[in-house]
């Protein structure tokens, strides 16, 4: 099984030598022009190895090639089939808006089939990133410069280090400067000079960098024969002391991370459960179709994205009210059509709503196909917030956490401050008395159910950003939702919030020790035992309302 790529490496080496020798000898203008043309042809038709050559040649051309290389990395570099020229295309959902890759002049819009994309492999992508890093080291944006330094930092390549050294002198941004310093300190750590090494270790112990941790760990390790990798005892001790220093910080950040994971899982649970807390908790309706109402919300997001493909971010925001309205209307229809005939008969309600859930699932299957639909994540929700090397928080989870809290506060305000809220609470406390006071209870029932369903739809929008949008989406969350509501205490919104976060955090703290499967089981066992002890949940309703 001889691999094909060895040949590629040889070619790469040969071409590197070629580029190098050309750079040394004169005739730069002529050969450069020629090289550039060759490079572009190779980029178009060449094999992967030839493309790699071409990229290096383009990089040699300096920053003017940056747009082409960046487009190549982003998968936006195409060959226009009609005239075989290189173009950069921006997706406009019907096809691409293209412009010439070399001159940059716009060439209008084309169909998807009119252009052929230039493919990349991981090896090419890695070298592209490195080259772009070098070219971007003088960019105006400190964040780009920082990324460039990080991309170059792992290099053993002397020329790259020389470029970095030069940059350090003129760099004004503190973070970037620090990053460059770390690169050189790491290099010092491997030097032959003992004093320099100890100084470097001392300086590095205050730095939050995984590279540093790895290097230090390697220093205090023993090899297979039982001897220390690092022979000098002073250096070993300094390294050990530095590691202790760093590890305390590492521990702290990793617990912060776990808490964040727990909160974000909790936020998803709360979002899924809070609609149910109203329909089940306040109204006492066991709504098995609750998950499918969330599914409708997720599909609304999908449809909204199909309707306005050019504005992803806006379409997600607009999906929130749309999903609320659609799910609420479906909820009201369910209440008016089925549930209102079944008040006080929980078993029948359960069966009837289960039937509704099957109907909703199957209709989605028939309309949208049984396959999962792909919902794109807007730019501002992807990626993560890199606090430092030890801690990064993913944006989508962060926004969902914030979103969950906003929804919770809004809901609380609706129940507390609006007349609908007052009526809902009155009916929940004592239906007959409320009726006697002139509250139209059946209308309130419908509105309450609609509110709960609408919230479920809004939760579906959030779920569409983290999981599959498919007919089975609801089923995955229905059990968890009931669990949270029952654990928190039926009829208490605060209980739902606390229960969701507690379960999320407990799950995430158990997971590293027990594994995902066992953690789930342990949490479930805990809830069963808890309910045995306190059947009304964390925050039981007190007073007369609870007894009725």
């Amino acid at each position: 099984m001889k691999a094909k790529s060895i040949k590629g490496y040889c070619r790469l080496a040969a071409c590197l030598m070629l580029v190098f020798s050309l750079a040394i000898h004169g005739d730069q203008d002529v050969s450069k022009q020629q090289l550039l043309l060759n490079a572009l042809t190779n980029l178009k038709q060449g094999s992967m190895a030839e493309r790699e050559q071409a990229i290096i040649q383009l990089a040699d051309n300096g920053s003017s090639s940056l747009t082409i290389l960046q487009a190549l990395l982003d998968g936006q570099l195409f060959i226009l089939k009609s005239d075989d020229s290189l173009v950069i295309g921006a997706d406009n959902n019907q096809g691409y808006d293209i412009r010439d890759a070399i001159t940059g002049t716009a060439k209008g819009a084309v169909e998807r089939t009119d252009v052929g994309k230039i493919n990349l492999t991981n090896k090419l992508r890695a070298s592209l990133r490195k080259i772009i890093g070098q070219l971007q080291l003088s960019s105006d944006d400190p964040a780009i410069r920082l990324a460039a330094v990080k991309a170059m930092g792992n290099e053993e390549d002397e020329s790259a280090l020389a470029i970095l050294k030069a940059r350090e002198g003129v760099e004004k941004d503190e973070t970037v400067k620090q990053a460059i310093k770390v690169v050189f300190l790491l290099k010092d750590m491997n030097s032959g000079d003992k004093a320099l090494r100890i100084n470097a270790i001392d300086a590095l112990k205050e730095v939050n960098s995984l590279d540093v941790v790895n290097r230090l760990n390697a220093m205090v390790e023993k090899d297979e024969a039982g001897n220390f990798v690092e022979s000098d005892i002073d250096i070993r001790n300094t390294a050990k002391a530095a590691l202790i220093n760093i590890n305390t910080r590492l521990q702290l950040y990793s617990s912060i991370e776990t808490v964040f994971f727990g909160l974000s899982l909790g936020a998803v649970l709360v979002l899924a459960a809070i609609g149910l807390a109203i329909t089940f908790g306040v109204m006492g309706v066991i709504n098995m179709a609750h998950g499918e109402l969330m599914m409708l919300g997720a599909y609304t997001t999908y449809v909204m994205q199909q309707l306005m493909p050019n504005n992803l971010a806006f379409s997600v925001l607009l999906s929130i009210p749309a999903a609320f309205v659609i799910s609420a209307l479906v909820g009201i229809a369910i209440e008016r059509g089925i549930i209102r005939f079944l008040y006080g008969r929980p078993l029948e309600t359960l069966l009837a709503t289960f039937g509704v859930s099957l109907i909703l699932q199957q209709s989605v299957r028939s309309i949208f196909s049984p396959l999962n639909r792909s919902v794109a994540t807007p730019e501002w929700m992807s990626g993560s917030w890199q606090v430092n090397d030890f801690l990064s928080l993913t944006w989508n989870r962060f926004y969902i956490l914030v979103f969950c809290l906003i929804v919770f506060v809004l809901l609380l305000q609706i129940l507390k401050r609006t007349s609908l809220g007052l009526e809902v609470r009155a009916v929940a406390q004592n239906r007959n008395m409320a009726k006697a006071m002139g509250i139209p209870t059946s209308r309130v029932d419908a509105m309450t159910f609609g509110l709960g369903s609408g919230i479920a739809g809004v939760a579906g929008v959030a779920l569409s950003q983290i999981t599959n949008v498919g007919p089975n989406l609801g089923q995955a969350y229905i059990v968890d939702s009931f669990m949270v509501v029952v654990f928190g205490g039926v009829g208490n919104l605060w209980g739902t919030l606390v229960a969701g976060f507690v379960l999320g955090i407990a799950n995430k703290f158990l997971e590293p020790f027990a594994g995902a499967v066992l953690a789930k089981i342990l949490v479930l066992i805990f809830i069963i035992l808890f309910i045995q002890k306190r059947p009304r949940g964390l925050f039981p309703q007190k007073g007369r309302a609870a007894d009725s």
Partner: protein
Amino acid sequence: MNRISEKLRKLSIVGAMALLTVASGTVRAEDTIKVGVLHSLSGTMAISETTLKDTMLMLIDEQNKKGGLLGKKLEAVVVDPASNWPLFAEKARELLTKDKVAAIFGCWTSVSRKSVLPVIEELNGLLFYPVQYEGEESSKNVFYTGAAPNQQAIPAVDYLMNDLKVKRWVLAGTDYVYPRTTNKILEAYLKSKGVAKKDILINYTPFGHSDWQSIVADIKKFGSTGKKTAVVSTINGDANIPFYKELGNQGISAEKIPVIAFSVGEEELSGMDTKPLVGHLAAWNYFMSVDSTKNAAFIEKWHEYTKNPKRVTNDPMEAHYIGFNMWVKAVEKAGTTDPTAVQKAIIGVEYPNLTGGTSKMLPNHHISKPVLIGEIQDDGQLLTVWQTNTLVDGDAWSDFLPESKPIIADWTAPINCGNYNTKTKKCSGQNF
């Protein structure tokens, strides 16, 4: 427009099936050779298996256009086991006793195959199984046209080890039989190659797992030691999308920690947002993107048959293509559809596969296949980055598990056994 034509297509298939069943009532049984198609058309597995049913109908249709088999027309008998494992056994019995089919093409999950096995052996039927699986099985009545572990998992690990210089390994899988067995084999294989225990991280998650934060954070930490790390993923179905999304969000790119998947193919990719997947790897025996005349012709026929130029082809489809044609050749060679005769005749039968080689049915009822490794592109296609120079023979019993190392399967005389111990020289019968 597309949806309408899709519906029309479905309608026409239903119509054709109805016609077929009506026709089968009037035409005498001897006039046609019946072929059973046992794939779920409803339930959770319908996503994957419906395509294979269409593939079989296309292959049978094509054979009939060529004049049928032994002078008779072929007739498809399609049943729906509805992703319900015991129902697979019932439907298989129905196909063999009531419809008297000459061969069955079907099953996807290992558990459905295990459920059909006793029936097929009792009634001496033939089953062609087209999906990659965990091995450790060889039945007289089953032909495994998908990949055994040594035709997918082991070469994939070889590629990562030799070409990408991977030193640390994460084996992540869904918690059921295929990932568990595959990971057991891979762990033993890695250890035999000198990988230390601390450099292997094994992780199992429930079906449909959607909260990957801590696991991905663990993988990130595991991969940050400076040694090249890769993830070997046997994660199944729906759990893949949140997994890759989380990888992307936590900033793990394919260049830093590549993920190689054994269950993600063109069909699965067509329903995913491919942005976070670009550059990750998949190992199969066939890619739609393979540039060969046979493949181009197959894709064209598929598009023509389904009347949808966007339909993708995938690895299990190719397995059915090879399996069906091998069966046709074996029947022609034997001159009869009698299962015992076909079982004898099919061993050694060769048929060109779609990637340019010629696959052969081996005495252990597995076939020889090339192994391809591809990188996922953002159009949902896989770009071949590595492939074996020759075809790899499927091995029923893994050589890397101590308990199955001495065991071989050989359905030719004098051994004639699917579970033969070369040390004790004993055939221990079947092992379900």
